[in-house]
Protein backbone atom coordinates (compact mmCIF):
# COMPACT_ATOMS: atom_id res chain seq x y z
CA UNK A 1 0.00 0.00 0.00
CA UNK A 2 1.30 3.37 -0.91
CA UNK A 3 1.12 6.25 1.51
CA UNK A 4 0.16 8.55 -1.34
CA UNK A 5 -3.49 9.44 -0.88
CA UNK A 6 -5.57 9.90 -3.98
CA UNK A 7 -8.79 11.78 -3.28
CA UNK A 8 -11.62 12.43 -5.72
CA UNK A 9 -13.24 15.83 -6.04
CA UNK A 10 -15.81 16.25 -3.29
CA UNK A 11 -19.03 18.26 -3.22
CA UNK A 12 -22.20 18.65 -1.13
CA UNK A 13 -23.34 15.12 -1.91
CA UNK A 14 -20.27 13.72 -0.19
CA UNK A 15 -21.11 15.54 3.01
CA UNK A 16 -24.65 14.21 2.83
CA UNK A 17 -23.51 10.62 2.33
CA UNK A 18 -21.02 10.86 5.19
CA UNK A 19 -23.64 12.40 7.47
CA UNK A 20 -26.26 9.74 6.68
CA UNK A 21 -23.82 6.84 7.09
CA UNK A 22 -22.38 8.13 10.35
CA UNK A 23 -25.86 8.75 11.67
CA UNK A 24 -26.93 5.22 10.75
CA UNK A 25 -24.23 3.47 12.77
CA UNK A 26 -23.13 6.14 15.27
CA UNK A 27 -23.02 4.79 18.80
CA UNK A 28 -23.62 1.22 17.66
CA UNK A 29 -21.57 -1.27 19.64
CA UNK A 30 -21.49 -5.07 19.58
CA UNK A 31 -22.94 -6.90 22.54
CA UNK A 32 -20.55 -8.33 25.17
CA UNK A 33 -21.64 -11.82 24.11
CA UNK A 34 -19.52 -11.51 20.95
CA UNK A 35 -16.25 -11.65 22.84
CA UNK A 36 -17.55 -14.43 25.07
CA UNK A 37 -18.45 -16.38 21.97
CA UNK A 38 -15.00 -15.81 20.45
CA UNK A 39 -13.38 -16.98 23.66
CA UNK A 40 -15.60 -20.05 23.85
CA UNK A 41 -14.84 -21.02 20.26
CA UNK A 42 -11.12 -20.64 20.82
CA UNK A 43 -11.34 -22.91 23.86
CA UNK A 44 -13.20 -25.52 21.83
CA UNK A 45 -10.32 -25.83 19.37
CA UNK A 46 -8.19 -28.98 19.71
CA UNK A 47 -5.23 -26.86 20.71
CA UNK A 48 -5.72 -23.27 21.79
CA UNK A 49 -2.81 -22.08 19.69
CA UNK A 50 -2.71 -20.15 16.43
CA UNK A 51 -2.10 -21.69 13.05
CA UNK A 52 1.65 -22.14 13.45
CA UNK A 53 1.21 -25.18 15.68
CA UNK A 54 -1.08 -26.77 13.15
CA UNK A 55 1.41 -26.96 10.31
CA UNK A 56 1.54 -30.61 9.29
CA UNK A 57 4.84 -32.37 9.24
CA UNK A 58 5.85 -34.07 5.97
CA UNK A 59 5.02 -37.59 7.13
CA UNK A 60 1.57 -36.43 8.25
CA UNK A 61 1.01 -34.73 4.90
CA UNK A 62 2.01 -37.99 3.18
CA UNK A 63 -0.32 -40.01 5.38
CA UNK A 64 -3.15 -37.59 4.70
CA UNK A 65 -2.54 -37.74 0.93
CA UNK A 66 -2.37 -41.54 1.08
CA UNK A 67 -5.63 -41.69 2.96
CA UNK A 68 -7.33 -39.44 0.41
CA UNK A 69 -5.97 -41.56 -2.43
CA UNK A 70 -7.01 -44.81 -0.76
CA UNK A 71 -10.51 -43.49 -0.11
CA UNK A 72 -10.71 -42.43 -3.74
CA UNK A 73 -9.79 -45.78 -5.21
CA UNK A 74 -12.01 -47.73 -2.81
CA UNK A 75 -15.07 -45.51 -3.31
CA UNK A 76 -16.40 -47.55 -6.31
CA UNK A 77 -16.03 -50.75 -4.28
CA UNK A 78 -18.00 -49.11 -1.53
CA UNK A 79 -20.94 -48.62 -3.86
CA UNK A 80 -20.82 -52.26 -4.97
CA UNK A 81 -20.57 -53.58 -1.44
CA UNK A 82 -23.37 -51.31 -0.30
CA UNK A 83 -25.65 -52.82 -2.88
CA UNK A 84 -24.75 -56.43 -2.04
CA UNK A 85 -24.40 -56.47 1.72
CA UNK A 86 -26.70 -55.51 4.54
CA UNK A 87 -25.43 -52.83 6.93
CA UNK A 88 -24.96 -55.54 9.57
CA UNK A 89 -22.77 -57.63 7.26
CA UNK A 90 -20.75 -54.58 6.36
CA UNK A 91 -20.18 -53.62 9.96
CA UNK A 92 -18.70 -57.08 10.61
CA UNK A 93 -16.36 -56.84 7.67
CA UNK A 94 -15.03 -53.31 8.23
CA UNK A 95 -12.94 -54.09 5.19
CA UNK A 96 -12.24 -50.53 4.25
CA UNK A 97 -10.75 -49.51 7.56
CA UNK A 98 -8.55 -52.62 7.58
CA UNK A 99 -7.38 -51.94 4.04
CA UNK A 100 -6.53 -48.36 4.90
CA UNK A 101 -4.68 -49.40 8.02
CA UNK A 102 -2.61 -51.98 6.14
CA UNK A 103 -1.80 -49.53 3.34
CA UNK A 104 -0.68 -46.86 5.80
CA UNK A 105 1.43 -49.39 7.68
CA UNK A 106 3.09 -50.40 4.42
CA UNK A 107 3.77 -46.78 3.60
CA UNK A 108 5.28 -46.16 7.02
CA UNK A 109 7.53 -49.21 6.68
CA UNK A 110 8.64 -48.08 3.23
CA UNK A 111 9.53 -44.60 4.50
CA UNK A 112 11.45 -45.94 7.47
Amino acid at each position, binding site marked *: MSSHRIQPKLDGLDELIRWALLDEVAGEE*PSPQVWQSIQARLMLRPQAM*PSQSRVKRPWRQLASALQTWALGITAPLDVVWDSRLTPRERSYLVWKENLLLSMMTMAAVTIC
Partner: protein
Amino acid sequence: MSLSEDGRLISQIRQGNILALKALYEKYKGPVYRTALAITRDREAAEDILQDCFLKVYTYIDKLDGSLPLSPWLHRVTVNLSYNWANKRRRWLQPLEEVIDHLIESPRTLPESTLERGELRYAIQAAIASLSFEHRVVIVLFYLNGFSLNEIAYVLDCPVGTVKSRLHYARRNLRRKLERDRGLAPEVAYEFS
Protein backbone atom coordinates in the same frame (compact mmCIF):
# COMPACT_ATOMS: atom_id res chain seq x y z
CA MET B 1 -2.41 2.62 21.44
CA SER B 2 0.28 2.97 18.79
CA LEU B 3 1.09 0.86 15.78
CA SER B 4 3.98 -0.79 17.61
CA GLU B 5 1.51 -1.66 20.34
CA ASP B 6 -0.45 -3.64 17.74
CA GLY B 7 2.77 -5.38 16.77
CA ARG B 8 3.48 -6.25 20.39
CA LEU B 9 -0.04 -7.64 20.82
CA ILE B 10 0.30 -9.65 17.62
CA SER B 11 3.51 -11.26 18.86
CA GLN B 12 1.82 -12.08 22.18
CA ILE B 13 -1.14 -13.63 20.38
CA ARG B 14 1.33 -15.83 18.48
CA GLN B 15 2.31 -17.26 21.86
CA GLY B 16 -1.35 -18.11 22.45
CA ASN B 17 -2.11 -15.13 24.70
CA ILE B 18 -5.88 -14.70 24.62
CA LEU B 19 -5.73 -11.50 26.68
CA ALA B 20 -3.64 -9.89 23.93
CA LEU B 21 -6.33 -10.90 21.44
CA LYS B 22 -8.92 -9.33 23.72
CA ALA B 23 -6.93 -6.08 23.82
CA LEU B 24 -6.82 -6.04 20.03
CA TYR B 25 -10.53 -6.86 19.92
CA GLU B 26 -11.37 -3.99 22.27
CA LYS B 27 -9.42 -1.60 20.07
CA TYR B 28 -10.98 -2.58 16.76
CA LYS B 29 -14.40 -4.02 17.63
CA GLY B 30 -16.19 -0.70 17.09
CA PRO B 31 -14.90 0.13 13.59
CA VAL B 32 -15.20 -3.47 12.39
CA TYR B 33 -18.71 -3.89 13.79
CA ARG B 34 -19.95 -0.56 12.41
CA THR B 35 -18.49 -1.30 8.99
CA ALA B 36 -20.19 -4.69 8.91
CA LEU B 37 -23.42 -3.09 10.13
CA ALA B 38 -23.29 -0.35 7.49
CA ILE B 39 -22.79 -2.97 4.78
CA THR B 40 -25.28 -5.59 5.98
CA ARG B 41 -27.76 -3.37 7.90
CA ASP B 42 -28.28 -6.36 10.17
CA ARG B 43 -27.05 -6.30 13.77
CA GLU B 44 -26.97 -10.05 14.15
CA ALA B 45 -25.01 -10.49 10.93
CA ALA B 46 -22.61 -7.70 11.94
CA GLU B 47 -21.91 -9.45 15.25
CA ASP B 48 -21.34 -12.77 13.48
CA ILE B 49 -18.93 -11.05 11.09
CA LEU B 50 -17.09 -9.38 13.96
CA GLN B 51 -16.74 -12.72 15.71
CA ASP B 52 -15.50 -14.52 12.59
CA CYS B 53 -13.14 -11.65 11.84
CA PHE B 54 -11.33 -12.02 15.16
CA LEU B 55 -11.29 -15.79 14.92
CA LYS B 56 -9.47 -15.26 11.63
CA VAL B 57 -7.06 -12.87 13.33
CA TYR B 58 -6.18 -15.68 15.71
CA THR B 59 -6.01 -18.32 13.01
CA TYR B 60 -3.86 -16.30 10.62
CA ILE B 61 -1.82 -14.41 13.21
CA ASP B 62 1.44 -15.72 11.73
CA LYS B 63 0.65 -14.11 8.39
CA LEU B 64 0.06 -10.68 9.89
CA ASP B 65 2.82 -8.11 9.67
CA GLY B 66 2.91 -6.28 12.99
CA SER B 67 4.74 -3.34 11.43
CA LEU B 68 1.83 -2.53 9.08
CA PRO B 69 -1.51 -0.95 10.04
CA LEU B 70 -3.94 -3.68 11.06
CA SER B 71 -7.11 -1.79 10.19
CA PRO B 72 -7.01 -2.34 6.38
CA TRP B 73 -6.43 -6.09 6.87
CA LEU B 74 -9.32 -6.30 9.36
CA HIS B 75 -11.59 -4.47 6.94
CA ARG B 76 -10.52 -6.73 4.10
CA VAL B 77 -11.67 -9.72 6.16
CA THR B 78 -14.84 -7.85 7.18
CA VAL B 79 -15.76 -7.08 3.59
CA ASN B 80 -15.11 -10.66 2.50
CA LEU B 81 -17.25 -12.01 5.31
CA SER B 82 -19.98 -9.49 4.48
CA TYR B 83 -19.82 -10.57 0.86
CA ASN B 84 -20.23 -14.20 1.90
CA TRP B 85 -23.16 -13.24 4.10
CA ALA B 86 -24.81 -11.29 1.29
CA ASN B 87 -24.37 -14.18 -1.12
CA LYS B 88 -25.73 -16.66 1.36
CA ARG B 89 -28.67 -14.69 2.57
CA ARG B 90 -29.45 -12.77 -0.59
CA ARG B 91 -30.74 -9.95 1.51
CA TRP B 92 -30.22 -7.19 -0.96
CA LEU B 93 -33.78 -7.32 -2.16
CA GLN B 94 -35.02 -6.31 1.27
CA PRO B 95 -33.50 -2.81 1.38
CA LEU B 96 -34.69 -2.28 -2.16
CA GLU B 97 -38.22 -3.17 -1.11
CA GLU B 98 -37.92 -0.76 1.81
CA VAL B 99 -36.98 2.02 -0.56
CA ILE B 100 -39.89 1.23 -2.85
CA ASP B 101 -42.31 1.10 0.09
CA HIS B 102 -41.03 4.39 1.39
CA LEU B 103 -41.34 6.05 -1.99
CA ILE B 104 -44.87 4.78 -2.41
CA GLU B 105 -45.83 6.09 1.01
CA SER B 106 -44.34 9.55 0.45
CA PRO B 107 -45.33 12.20 -2.04
CA ARG B 108 -43.09 12.08 -5.10
CA THR B 109 -41.71 15.54 -4.56
CA LEU B 110 -41.67 17.76 -1.55
CA PRO B 111 -40.69 21.39 -1.20
CA GLU B 112 -37.24 21.51 0.35
CA SER B 113 -38.49 23.75 3.11
CA THR B 114 -40.89 21.07 4.39
CA LEU B 115 -38.39 18.26 4.38
CA GLU B 116 -37.36 17.20 7.80
CA ARG B 117 -33.87 16.13 8.64
CA GLY B 118 -35.05 12.64 9.54
CA GLU B 119 -36.72 12.16 6.22
CA LEU B 120 -33.73 13.43 4.31
CA ARG B 121 -31.47 11.12 6.27
CA TYR B 122 -33.77 8.19 5.63
CA ALA B 123 -33.87 8.97 1.92
CA ILE B 124 -30.08 8.96 1.69
CA GLN B 125 -29.71 5.83 3.79
CA ALA B 126 -32.32 4.07 1.68
CA ALA B 127 -30.60 5.19 -1.51
CA ILE B 128 -27.27 3.82 -0.22
CA ALA B 129 -28.99 0.57 0.77
CA SER B 130 -30.34 0.15 -2.73
CA LEU B 131 -26.87 0.26 -4.30
CA SER B 132 -25.21 -2.93 -5.50
CA PHE B 133 -22.95 -4.69 -3.01
CA GLU B 134 -19.76 -3.48 -4.74
CA HIS B 135 -20.89 0.15 -4.82
CA ARG B 136 -22.19 0.06 -1.28
CA VAL B 137 -18.94 -1.36 0.09
CA VAL B 138 -16.89 1.36 -1.61
CA ILE B 139 -19.22 4.03 -0.27
CA VAL B 140 -18.99 2.66 3.29
CA LEU B 141 -15.21 2.31 3.22
CA PHE B 142 -14.70 5.76 1.76
CA TYR B 143 -17.24 7.80 3.70
CA LEU B 144 -17.66 5.91 6.96
CA ASN B 145 -14.13 4.59 7.47
CA GLY B 146 -12.36 7.44 5.73
CA PHE B 147 -10.04 5.11 3.82
CA SER B 148 -8.07 6.50 0.89
CA LEU B 149 -8.59 5.02 -2.58
CA ASN B 150 -5.29 3.15 -2.21
CA GLU B 151 -6.40 1.66 1.07
CA ILE B 152 -9.76 0.64 -0.39
CA ALA B 153 -7.92 -0.98 -3.30
CA TYR B 154 -5.98 -3.07 -0.76
CA VAL B 155 -9.13 -3.94 1.20
CA LEU B 156 -10.96 -5.03 -1.95
CA ASP B 157 -7.87 -6.53 -3.57
CA CYS B 158 -8.45 -4.67 -6.83
CA PRO B 159 -6.73 -1.85 -8.79
CA VAL B 160 -7.12 1.75 -7.63
CA GLY B 161 -8.72 2.52 -11.00
CA THR B 162 -11.51 0.04 -10.23
CA VAL B 163 -12.13 1.71 -6.87
CA LYS B 164 -12.27 5.15 -8.52
CA SER B 165 -14.68 3.83 -11.11
CA ARG B 166 -16.94 2.19 -8.52
CA LEU B 167 -16.94 5.29 -6.36
CA HIS B 168 -17.75 7.47 -9.34
CA TYR B 169 -20.69 5.32 -10.44
CA ALA B 170 -21.93 4.83 -6.88
CA ARG B 171 -22.00 8.60 -6.33
CA ARG B 172 -23.65 9.16 -9.67
CA ASN B 173 -26.32 6.56 -8.88
CA LEU B 174 -26.94 8.11 -5.48
CA ARG B 175 -27.22 11.59 -6.95
CA ARG B 176 -29.68 10.39 -9.56
CA LYS B 177 -31.75 8.49 -7.03
CA LEU B 178 -31.98 11.49 -4.73
CA GLU B 179 -32.78 13.90 -7.54
CA ARG B 180 -35.30 11.64 -9.27
CA ASP B 181 -37.01 9.94 -6.35
CA ARG B 182 -37.06 12.77 -3.87
CA GLY B 183 -37.04 15.74 -6.18
CA LEU B 184 -34.05 16.79 -4.20
CA ALA B 185 -30.99 18.43 -5.63
CA PRO B 186 -28.01 17.47 -3.47
CA GLU B 187 -26.77 21.01 -3.36
CA VAL B 188 -30.15 22.15 -2.01
CA ALA B 189 -30.18 19.26 0.43
CA TYR B 190 -26.71 20.21 1.54
CA GLU B 191 -27.85 23.74 2.20
CA PHE B 192 -30.77 22.33 4.17
CA SER B 193 -28.61 20.07 6.29
